């Protein structure tokens, strides 16, 4: 039987900027098989909160080849939300997790050669879509440019992407840092022409990137989210409309938790 349910201990928790928390958990067994783009289901200790909170894996950490720590960076969505309870857990708190879940980013697809061009993957993140891309930068074997879009001067994880990627482009909506605008504005300002896009962020950003990639005929992989219950592909709560009939569901719906969360942009209907 594959193990999927773990009871792990919080190693540390800190607030990176207002409402954004960095939780590290000692989870050597779980992280053994985890990859960039996957997520975990976090159960809250308040048992009246029945459902897990899906949180993407920000980083898999460890010393040398021994991976033992799961890093989650997440946003507290409201005062009374489950994520608010999660942010109250101090080091030493025992937490139940289900994972790793989902398909992860297809690293092998990043190496697609374009005629006459070296691979240069655009790793594009918007707001709270940014954290899972950090592990992606660690795992991508080829040249990658991180393109990060923030609302304002709360530039969480920016410095870490500076080290993890070959190049960093930043946009802020209010213009307080980098290019004023969004991630596409930042790419255009640098005249950056990626060979492939891997992205995570709000739906309008994903739509724009899907179109941008289609216009340039480059592969585009997007990580999606939807309200979840089971997290393993059983309850059919978290579906996204697909362009074609899905071979498993036999209708035009794919499961974000199981068939995703990473999809080829043209596979899913983002309207």
């Amino acid at each position: 039987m594959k193990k999927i349910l773990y009871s792990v201990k919080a190693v540390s928790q800190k607030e990176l900027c207002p409402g954004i928390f960095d939780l590290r958990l000692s989870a050597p067994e779980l992280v053994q098989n985890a990859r960039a783009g996957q997520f975990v289901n976090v159960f809250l200790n308040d048992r009246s909160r029945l459902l897990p909170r899906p949180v993407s894996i920000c980083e898999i950490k460890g010393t040398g080849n021994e991976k033992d720590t799961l890093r989650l960076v997440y946003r507290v969505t409201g005062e009374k939300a489950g994520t608010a309870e999660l942010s109250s857990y101090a080091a030493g708190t025992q937490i139940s997790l289900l994972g790793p879940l989902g398909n992860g980013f297809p690293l092998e697809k990043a190496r697609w050669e374009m005629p006459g061009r070296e691979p240069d993957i655009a790793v594009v993140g918007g707001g709270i879509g940014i954290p899972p891309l950090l592990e992606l930068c660690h795992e991508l074997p080829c040249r990658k440019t991180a393109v990060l879009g923030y609302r304002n001067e709360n530039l969480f994880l920016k410095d870490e992407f500076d080290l993890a990627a070959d190049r960093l482009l930043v946009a802020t909506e209010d213009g307080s840092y980098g290019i004023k605008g969004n991630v596409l504005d930042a790419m255009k300002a640098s005249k950056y022409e990626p060979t492939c896009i891997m992205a995570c962020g709000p739906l309008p950003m994903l739509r724009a990137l899907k179109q941008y990639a289609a216009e340039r005929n480059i592969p585009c992989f997007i990580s999606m989210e939807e309200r979840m219950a089971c997290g393993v592909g059983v309850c059919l709560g978290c579906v996204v409309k697909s362009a074609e009939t899905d071979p498993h569901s036999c209708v035009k719906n794919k499961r974000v938790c199981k068939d995703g969360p990473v999809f080829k942009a043209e596979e899913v209907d983002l309207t």
Partner: protein
Amino acid sequence: MSREPEMKVSIAGVELKNPVMTASGTFGSGEEYSEFTDLNRLGAVVTKGVANVPWAGNPVPRIAETPSGMLNAIGLQNPGVDVFIQRDLPFLKKFDTKIVVNVCGHTAEEYLEVAERLSEEPVDLLEINISCPNVKEGGIGFGQDPKAVEKITAEIRKKAKQPVIMKLSPNVTDISEIAKAAESGGADAVSLINTITGMKIDVVKRKFVLANKTGGLSGPAIRPVAVRMVYEAAHAVKIPVIGMGGITNADDALEFILAGATAVCVGSANFRNPLATSEIVDGIRDYMLQYDISDIRELTGAVG
């Protein structure tokens, strides 16, 4: 006590190794959870509802959490009976557990078509979903009126080869009346409760949380209502009653058995703990050893 407690139960002549089953809609057709939990330990797997053709279900959001529970408005998305027979049934046959296929439809003809397609298949029991609150026609219509319940039960009973379990809706005034109607129609058993119709509103956005506006409430919050209804149904009919509604552990399961349930289904508990079903089997056995109960049937309806 040195003898192993007897946990076998019988529903309409079909023997289950223990009274623990999965609740339809929470376990798919077993494939996903089979990676994490041993299906051979279960009395039966009750599949997701199967219709005559693939159904896409409702738009998202389909899920909302509520205190000690959740609302779902999946809308009975399923791949249809053809794919079920060709792909999902052979998978389930690999395991030493009984197979209960849940059947859904918009019209009586659709239910009958599925029952007929399954009649030559290695399925042990049929569970007829006349109680899903999330499908606009056919769900509510059939399950809330005793005459309609009796009529659809009789029609299916005539065509179905396997024993027929009618799954009852709790969204009714008098569950005993509905249970009696199913029995009069020829049902071999009844199962209850399905989800209770509920609603959640986001006060910041001032919008319905579910795209469908309403959804079915499940989880521990509904358990007291479910236990009460199982008790009432068990006192209204002679056919076996299968109980479900917020069962998370063996004690919860035993409440239903003591209220009159021959077997129980475990549903949303799987979302919190994929091992819930087998832990409940073990927990019932521990209870029987602790209280010197040699046969589970001693506990059926033994409350009061």
